[in-house]
C-alpha cells in the first residue's frame, strides 16, 4: 500500500480550514450587519455613484469618460456572496495632462477635507510614486484617483458601501 506523500504545510491548511469552518469566521454581510444596512435600489446607488463622479470631473475641469458603472454582490469574509446585499462600483477616466495631475488631486483633497472626507492616501505624502489620492466620504463611499500608466489621464474609481436590496 502506498501512502500519499505528506506535505508539511498541508496539515496546517486542513487545520486552518477546519478552524475557519468551526470557528465560523464571520464577517462581511453577516446577519447583524445586514440589519443595520441601508436599503436602496441598485439604480439609485448607481445614480449616487455617478453624481459623485460628475462632481469630481467638474472640480477637475475635465470630461468624464465612463468605463463602467455596475452593481456586484458584497462578499463576506469567507468569500460567500449575498443575493440581497450589493455594492456599486463606478470606473471612469479624466483626460488631464500629466503636468496638472498633482494640482488636480490637491484641489480634490482640499475640497474633500472641507466636506469631512477621511483622506487615506494623500498625494503629497507619497514621494516616489505617481499622483494618487484615496478617501472615504461620510457616507462610506470610497474614492480612488490615480495617474494612468503612462500618465495621460487620471483614473477614478468609486465604490459604494454595501446596500440591502428592497425586498
Amino acid at each position, binding site marked *: 500500500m502506498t501512502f*500519499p*506523500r*505528506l*506535505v*508539511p*504545510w*498541508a*496539515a*496546517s*491548511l*486542513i*487545520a*486552518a*480550514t*477546519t*478552524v*475557519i*469552518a*468551526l*470557528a465560523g*469566521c464571520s*464577517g462581511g454581510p453577516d446577519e447583524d450587519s445586514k440589519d443595520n444596512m441601508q436599503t436602496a435600489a441598485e439604480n439609485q446607488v448607481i445614480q449616487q455613484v455617478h453624481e459623485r463622479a460628475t462632481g469630481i470631473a467638474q472640480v477637475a475641469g475635465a470630461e468624464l469618460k465612463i*468605463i*463602467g458603472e455596475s452593481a*456586484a*454582490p458584497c*462578499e*463576506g*469574509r*469567507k*468569500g*460567500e*456572496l449575498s443575493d440581497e446585499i450589493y*455594492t456599486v*462600483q463606478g*470606473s471612469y*477616466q479624466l483626460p488631464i495632462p500629466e503636468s496638472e495631475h498633482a494640482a488636480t488631486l490637491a484641489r480634490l483633497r482640499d475640497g474633500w477635507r472641507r466636506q469631512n472626507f477621511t483622506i487615506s492616501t494623500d498625494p503629497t505624502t507619497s514621494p*516616489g*510614486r*505617481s499622483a*494618487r489620492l484615496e478617501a472615504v466620504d461620510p457616507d462610506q463611499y*470610497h474614492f*480612488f484617483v*490615480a495617474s*494612468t*500608466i*503612462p500618465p*495621460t*489621464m487620471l*483614473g*477614478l*474609481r468609486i*465604490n459604494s458601501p454595501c446596500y440591502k436590496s428592497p425586498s
Partner: protein
Amino acid sequence: VSELTLQQLLSCDPAPYAQAAVAWQEWAKEIDNTAELFIRAARDLGDAWPEGEGAEATHRRAAALRDELSNAYQPAQRIGYALQRLADGMAQLRDWAGDLVARAGGHGLEVDVAAGTVTAPLDMYRSGSPAHTTALVNGYHNDLTTLLARARGLDDAITREIVANVPDPVLGFGTAIPQAIGRPQVERLLGRSPAVVRLWWQGLTPTQQDQAIHDFPNLVGWLDGVPATDRNTANRLRLQRDAADLQQRAEEIRRQITDLDWSGDPPLDVMSREQQLLEDQAEVNAERRRLGKVEATLAGLGDKGFLLGYDPAGDGKAVVAVGNPDTAAHTAVWVPGLNTELDDIKGNTSRVEHIQEAADLLTPETNDVAAVMWLGYDAPETDLSVLTHGRSEQGGKALDSFVDGLNVTHDGGQQHVTAIGHSYGSTVVAEAALRGNGLAVDEIVVAGSPGMHTDHAADLNIDPRHVWSGSAPGDPVSDPYGHHGKYVGYVPIAGGWLNSAEDGIHGISPHQPEFGANRFHVDATGHSDYWKEGSESLTNQAYVVVGAYDEVHLDHGEAPSK
C-alpha cells in the same frame, strides 16, 4: 524564370514587399473574422426560412458565399507569408551582395554590377601573383553568382507561390468544401504543445474550424493554442447543449412521474419507481442549478466574458476570462485554491473582475487588461487530497500549458502575463514554475499562500524581484503563527491538537523575508479579502499586473526597476 540582375538586387528596396505582406496578413485576418461572423449569422437560416424555392436559392447562395469566403482565408494568409519571406530574404541577400562588392573593391577588384562580372586591373596581375589574383577574381565572381542564383531562386519560388494562391479570374477562390475534421484528428492534439495546436488550427479553413467547434466542442474548448474567441464559442456551445440535455431529461422524468400507473394493489413497484424518479429529478435539478450559475456569471460579464474552459464532470472545471487575453496588453491568470468547485464560479469570477477593473483603470486604453479565473484543475477538498502534492502537480502541468497557449494565441504587440495564486492555488502556480523551463509569465503573485514547495523565490525560474506575496493579518493559512492563534483556540476539543499540529510543520511562507519575494501590503484581514473592491491589496496587485512596480506598496523586498 527570374532574370534578376546584380544591379537590381543591390538596389532592391524590400520595404514595399514587407508592407504588402502586412496588408495581406491583415486582410487574411479580416476574412477569417468575417467568415466567422457570416457562418454564425447564417447558421439558423434553415430554421428561420425552411421551405420554398426562395429559401432553397438563398441557402445555396449562402452556402456558396460561406465556402468561398472560407476558402479565401488560407490563400490570403499564404500570400502574406510569402511576401514576408521575399522581403526578409531579399534584404538579407542584398546586404550580403553589397558586402561582397565592398570587400572585392577593398581588394582592388572591379565589380560591374550591370553585367555581373568581376575583374582585376592589369597592375594587380603584374605587381602580385597572377594565380592569386585570378583566384581572387574567380572567388568573388562565384560568390556573387551563387548569391544572385539564390536571389533568383527566391524570386521564382515566391512568384510561383503567389500565382498559385491568387484567385481564379472566373471561379474566384472556389466553393469546394474542405475535408471535414474527424474526432481522431482533434484527439491527436490533446497533450500536444500549444504551438503545435496553434499551427494546426491556423491551417484549417474557417469552415473547418467551425465544423470542429460544432462537432467536438468538448475537445476544442480545452485545446491550449486555439484562440480565445474560438474556445469561447466551443465552450458556450457545450454549455448550451448540456443545458438543453438537462432540460430534456427533466421533462422526461416529469413525464414518467405523471405516467406512473397507481392502479395496482399494493403499488409497491410503483412506489419504488417513483422514489427512483424523484431522486433522478433532484440530481438533474441540482445539475441545472449549477449550470445556471455558469450561465448567470457569463450573462453578468456581457461582452467582456470569455468561457475558455468548461467541464461539469465531478466537482467541475471552468476557465472564465474577463476581457480577451489574445488582444490584451496585460493578462492576469488567477488560480483558486482549496474546496473550489464549479458551484463557486460567481464569487471567483467576481474576484478576477475586480482585478481586471482595478488594473484596467490604471491604463489609458480601456479593455487592454484581461483577467482569467482559471479553475482548470481539480482543486482539493478538505480531505486526504490536500495532504499530497498530487492535485498541485496535475494543476501545475495544466496551468503551464494554458499560459503557453496564451502566449502563442496572442495577436502580437506587448503582452505582460501575471499568474496569481490564492491559497492552495499558489502551490499550483509554484509547481508550474518549478518544473521544466518554468511558467512563461512575467510576474508571480501569491496571496494567502501556505507555501510554494520551495524555500526560495529564486527557485521559481523567474527573477525573484518579480515574485510578489501578500498575507493578511488573521489569515490562518498563510499566517497561522501571527497574532491570530485565537482561531485555533476557538475550536472545541481539537484546539490543542491543532496548535500542536501547526507547530513545526510549516514550510516557509512566501511572505517571510527569507523567502526572497516582495511582500506587498495587504490592508484586508482573513483569508478571502485580498481582492476586495477599493482595497490597497487589490490596488497593489493591479499595479503589478500592469507592470508599474514603483507604485506597489511593499512591506519588504525590492521592486524591479522596469
